[in-house]
């Protein structure tokens, strides 16, 4: 087994360094959150988040070792089995799970708890990659698309049962993988434009302005072009569909959606909406980040994050600590690190010799990107408050291990890329 012996020589060390850098920064940052100048603290203390997070990091390295030791063929071969086990655990959660912070998504093992939904991400990524990588698979085939959609909808649905909306929508990031592998961009474009129209519906109070604008645009497009029935008819139908969409969206907002969600949506498009109530988190988060200035207040010197003004600051709102204590410079550093990681993962994905590994690589990139975009976007008021962690920074073992597993399976596959037959 010569290949196994010098596996370390083939691991992508750029990614490994990025990983170590992000995890270390994340840990220092968690220490900054729990730091209390007035208390006698030991940073190794296991009753503090910083101490526990260190334990989680140590466990991550064991996991990494395990991933590297296991034969690379294991992941493709047993993708369905892993997927099945995770789904089973997700099914178990409502039965034996315990509730933490309104979400019943945890399974307890003695002193520790695990969040199976976190592990559903890499399991789904394996299955999706396996299907895409299977012989004769065609992305533009409707049946293939249906199967793939089913693979992501099932865990989503099970996670939604746990009322964990945030983790559930992470699975929509697989659409990016499908797109890369050949799915028509139509679905993405429709989705994005629907979202755009929905936001417009929320911003513009009087729907008639919107309708007027649509008709005006239609008139202009019709006027400057060939005025044939063949061209005008589909355009008019399109405009009508958009108007109906707005109408129905408005109806959903006002009559179907629970008030809580409606408020969150309104809060999103209007940052001044109810700043002390529904927008409290975002208001305080923006205050914390915004008060950082260019260079920040200094390590351990944040006031907003230290004195609990920002809720859930070690988990979902961890980015506030970076923004407050290290300012725009700190934000730039963290965002650049993430961008570099994403680019590196895409680079690795592209150099794979089979579709399975490539699709898996894109799954990793998409999931990381989704977490990154939604989490930071939420803290600076660009996305609604959806509670998902910032990879490697948010406190918590399950999420750290989930991201570690995602990343290192890819690195393992990458290390052996020359051994596989070309199946692209």
């Amino acid at each position, binding site marked *: 087994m010569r290949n196994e012996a010098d596996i370390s020589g083939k691991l992508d060390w750029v990614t490994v360094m990025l990983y170590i850098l992000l995890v270390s920064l994340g840990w220092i940052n968690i220490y900054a959150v729990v730091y209390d100048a*007035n208390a006698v603290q030991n940073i190794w203390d296991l009753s503090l988040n910083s101490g526990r997070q260190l334990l989680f990091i140590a466990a991550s390295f064991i996991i990494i070792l395990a991933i590297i030791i296991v034969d690379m063929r294991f992941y493709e071969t047993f993708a369905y089995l892993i997927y099945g086990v995770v789904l089973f655990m997700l099914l178990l959660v409502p039965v034996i799970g315990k509730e933490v912070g309104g979400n019943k998504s945890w399974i307890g093992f003695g002193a520790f708890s695990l969040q199976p939904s976190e592990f559903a991400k890499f399991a789904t990524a394996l299955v999706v990659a396996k299907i895409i990588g299977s012989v004769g698979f065609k992305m533009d085939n409707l049946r293939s698309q249906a199967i793939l959609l089913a693979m992501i909808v099932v865990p989503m649905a099970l996670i939604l049962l746990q009322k964990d909306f945030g983790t559930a929508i992470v699975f929509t990031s697989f659409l990016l993988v499908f797109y890369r592998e050949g799915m028509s961009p139509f679905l993405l474009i429709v989705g994005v434009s629907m979202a755009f129209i929905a936001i417009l519906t929320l911003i513009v109070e009087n729907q008639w302005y919107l309708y007027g604008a649509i008709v005006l645009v239609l008139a202009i497009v019709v006027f400057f072009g060939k005025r044939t029935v063949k061209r005008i008819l589909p355009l008019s139908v399109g405009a009508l569909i958009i108007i109906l969409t707005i109408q129905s969206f408005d109806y959903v907002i006002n009559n179907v959606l629970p008030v809580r969600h409606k408020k969150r949506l309104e809060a999103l498009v209007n940052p001044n909406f109810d700043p002390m109530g529904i927008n409290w988190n975002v208001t305080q988060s923006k*205050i914390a980040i915004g008060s950082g200035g260019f260079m920040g207040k200094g390590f351990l010197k944040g006031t*907003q994050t230290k*004195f609990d003004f920002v809720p859930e600051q070690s988990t979902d709102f961890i980015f506030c600590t970076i923004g407050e204590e290290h300012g725009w410079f700190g*934000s730039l550093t963290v965002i*650049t690190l993430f961008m570099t990681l994403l680019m590196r993962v*895409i680079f690795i994905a592209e150099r794979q010799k089979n579709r399975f590994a490539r699709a898996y690589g894109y799954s990793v990139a998409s999931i990381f*990107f989704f977490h990154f975009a939604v989490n930071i*976007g939420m803290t*600076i008021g660009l996305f609604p408050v959806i509670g998902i962690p910032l990879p490697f920074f948010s406190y918590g073992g399950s999420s750290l291990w989930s991201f570690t597993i995602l990343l290192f399976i890819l690195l393992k596959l990458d290390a052996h890329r020359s051994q596989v037959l070309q199946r692209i």
Partner: protein
Amino acid sequence: MNQGRKEILQFVFILVGVIFLIKLFFIQVLDNRYAELADGNAILRQVEYPSRGLIYDRNKKLIAFNSPEYDLEVIIKDVKKFDSAKFCAVFEISQEELRKRFKEMKARKEYSPYKPTLFMNQLSSIDFAKVQDHLDEFPGFYVQARTTRSYGAPSLANALGYVSEISKDNLARDESKIYKQGDYVGQSGIEAFYEEQLRGKRGVRFKLRNVKGIEKGSFKGGEYDTLSVPGQNLITGIDIDLQQYGEFLMEGKAGSIVAIEPASGEILSLVSGPSYDPNLLTGRNYSSNFKLISNDTLKPLFNRPLMAQYRPGSIFKIAQAMTALQEKVITPDTRIRCDRSIINCHGAHTNEDLRGAIANSCNPYFHNVLRRMLNQGVVDDPFGDTRVGLAEWNKHIMSFGFGKKLGIDLPNEKEGLVPTPEYYDRAYRSQAWKFSNIYSLAIGEGENLVVPIQMANFAAIIANRGHYYTPHLVKAIGENGKPLPQYQERHYTTIDSSYFIVAVDAMQKVVEEGTGQYRAKLADVIVCGKTGTVQNAPPLFDHSVFIAFAPRDNPKIAISVYVEDAGQGARAAASIASLMIEKYLFGQTKRPHIEQYVLNNKFE
């Protein structure tokens, strides 16, 4: 078919990162609002009120001090839902009042939900004990300790003044920007005049606090904190025992007593009758009491020693005598016949010299003296001659401190009036007036107006044989301090000091054998005095006036007493003045019949 999709995805990823960085640049670097909001969140600005300077009397008895008091402040942002019924019970207000207070507070211009705002002032220390137990049930409400003024004796109200919340007008006028709404400021008396010395310097402490409002140490290690500096203590020349005795004697009367130490100008007592207890204008009942006192028909807030302008009456004859001697129109030996066909007189005398004329308060004598002064024949026409004479006369009289503000260390002092030629020009709307029009000036009637403090100062001038120190209440700022510089300066009259021995002799004669002999005379000390009976419109009694100093040599006290509507100067005013002198010089009075006479208030 999938060409370029990798690049599109890369572009989307990078685009999102760049959008985040741009947005972050806006809120972190370009927009300072968030930094301010963060400070508002986490930094609690605590004002430390310095203790106001104490006020002592000349024997180091405490007359004004501070007692602890607590204000209830609120930071609206921190207020959580609370049980308003319970709140009202704890703070003893009604539900409507609670709502009203919230409404008023939010209507204020400088209102901010992030800043501590005054909600309820002056909880007494007893209230505070009760409130403290319940305070944690009402998050957002804080107690701010400060002190309120208390006065050691129910006395000296008009001289001390009072301290109350700064008014909107004064706040708007305050250019020093030292005060903010809700601050306390001296409103009259010493409290107002020495506000700058008494108030001290406020300190500010910046504390960090967490979301629950719990303090988390000082902001930046206290770098921006300032310590409060307590106000300076004032030592007054007031003898509080004498003051209280004076107020006791003035009970049921309107008028004033002013006693001065001639050698220094320190005011020993400053009695305004009627008065009030200064403690009524402190604490939570200030507003209701103030309304009561200011609406009182007897005007207890009217500070008579400084503000009441009276005609001086016969005491003015001494000033006339001094002026005439200086102008050399008479000598101490000049005798003038008491011709009662010119002007009425009283007592049995016919042809006195200057000392006798003063002792007997001879009106025809001083009628003649004034004519000699005003008509010296400098100009041929009688009108012009009187003008020249009056101008000269005015200069001398003014040098006694009459007709102008003396500059005492209290606000609202009045000038009085010593007529000038221009004054009569205006009054007669021409220059066609001469001595016969204005001869009432001779005996301290007519247009003359003086205030009691000027009369006491006048007595001090004679006691000092021709000079005075501006009367002042505060003899030392700080424990071993000095009075303000303007009170260390000696002022001379335009009269040669050699002439004053005549006035001293005459005033001694007044007390020993003249108009004041019965009630003003003391057994163990030579008192020099002068009575005055100021005409009043019948059926009211005349005003009773007396000025005096004692002992004759090296005088320790100079005094003026003015009792409205009390008849002859030899009665009420002379009695009170002699009792005050006796009390001050000997610590007690041994003439119960005189004291009783004063307290009976029957002087006819």
